[in-house]
């Protein structure tokens, strides 16, 4: 199946394997069997080409620049949102100090608004944890890419760092769930009450 791509040792091995199969077959092969063999040969060439492309990947760009850059950007997002949240909290604390100087009704309204801002600001913790999960996923992809390229180019894959045994608290730490997958406060309250 010539396609203009220079032949390599992988292609030669595939052709040899197909010829060996043909040679082992007694009598004439049917058109269906010939088509199947042609498909197998094409599949083998596709796999060989993919392996060559993986081996030729500029993995150093991915592991040395793209992923570290992406994780740095994500860290910067966490840093900027934390800074903005702390500015908001500074303003809230200033407003709380003013409560003593305004009539009781206004003070109560002020406190209610400040409380709602405190509640809303807890988003920063949740987004920080979600971004942490994305960073961990990027690092896992980086390790897999390195291992795939090493495997395809016949090099030894980088050794995984030994993992310390995890405590129950660490094993169960999954971070925030996606909407729909999380248990609500009401469901948690019911679950806790079922133990009493």
């Amino acid at each position, binding site marked *: 199946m010539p396609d203009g791509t220079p032949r390599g040792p992988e292609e030669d091995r595939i052709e040899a394997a197909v010829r060996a199969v043909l040679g082992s077959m007694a009598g004439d092969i049917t058109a269906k069997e010939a088509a199947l063999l042609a498909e197998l040969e094409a599949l083998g060439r596709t796999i060989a080409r993919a392996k060559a492309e993986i081996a030729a990947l500029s993995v150093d760009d991915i592991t040395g620049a793209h992923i570290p850059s992406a994780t740095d950007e994500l860290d910067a997002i966490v840093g900027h949102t*934390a800074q903005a*949240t*702390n500015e908001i*909290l500074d303003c*809230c*604390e200033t407003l*709380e100090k003013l409560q003593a100087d305004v009539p009781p009704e206004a003070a109560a309204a002020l*406190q209610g608004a400040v*409380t709602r801002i*405190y*509640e809303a*600001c*807890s*988003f*920063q*913790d*949740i987004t*920080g*944890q979600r971004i942490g999960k994305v960073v961990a996923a990027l690092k896992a992809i980086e390790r897999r890419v390195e291992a795939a390229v090493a495997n395809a180019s016949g090099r030894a894959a980088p050794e995984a760092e030994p993992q310390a045994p995890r*405590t*129950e*608290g*660490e094993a*169960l*730490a*999954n*971070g*925030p*769930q996606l909407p729909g997958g*999380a*248990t*609500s*406060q009401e469901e*948690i309250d019911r*679950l*806790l009450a079922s*133990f009493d």
Partner: protein
Amino acid sequence: MDRNINVLIVDDYRTMLRIIRNLLKQLDFNNVDEATDGQEALAKLRAGNFGLVISDWNMAPMTGLDLLKEVRADARLKNIPFIMITAESKTENVIAAKQAGVSNYIVKPFNAETLREKIEKVLVHA
């Protein structure tokens, strides 16, 4: 309910510590100390006299669940009310915390009313 007790809040996000501290202040709890992981919290609990712990789960080097187990295993600390306040909302997390002796469990994001209600509940039963 005694609002003069010492409260220890534990979270690795300093912004969250600040939010909880301010919400506690609104509830008239003014004696509040902070720690950013379980190990620091345990050292403060062993050195001090606290009447309530409010802890996050997901922290290193010691998680909130592991802190809870240490607290319940310590003869002097084992009766301190312990509220877990965390984004870990899977049923298995709640069950593990309950089995370890948690007094109550709040899932993030939470509101001030939930915090007030859970604190009052655990302190009344303390």
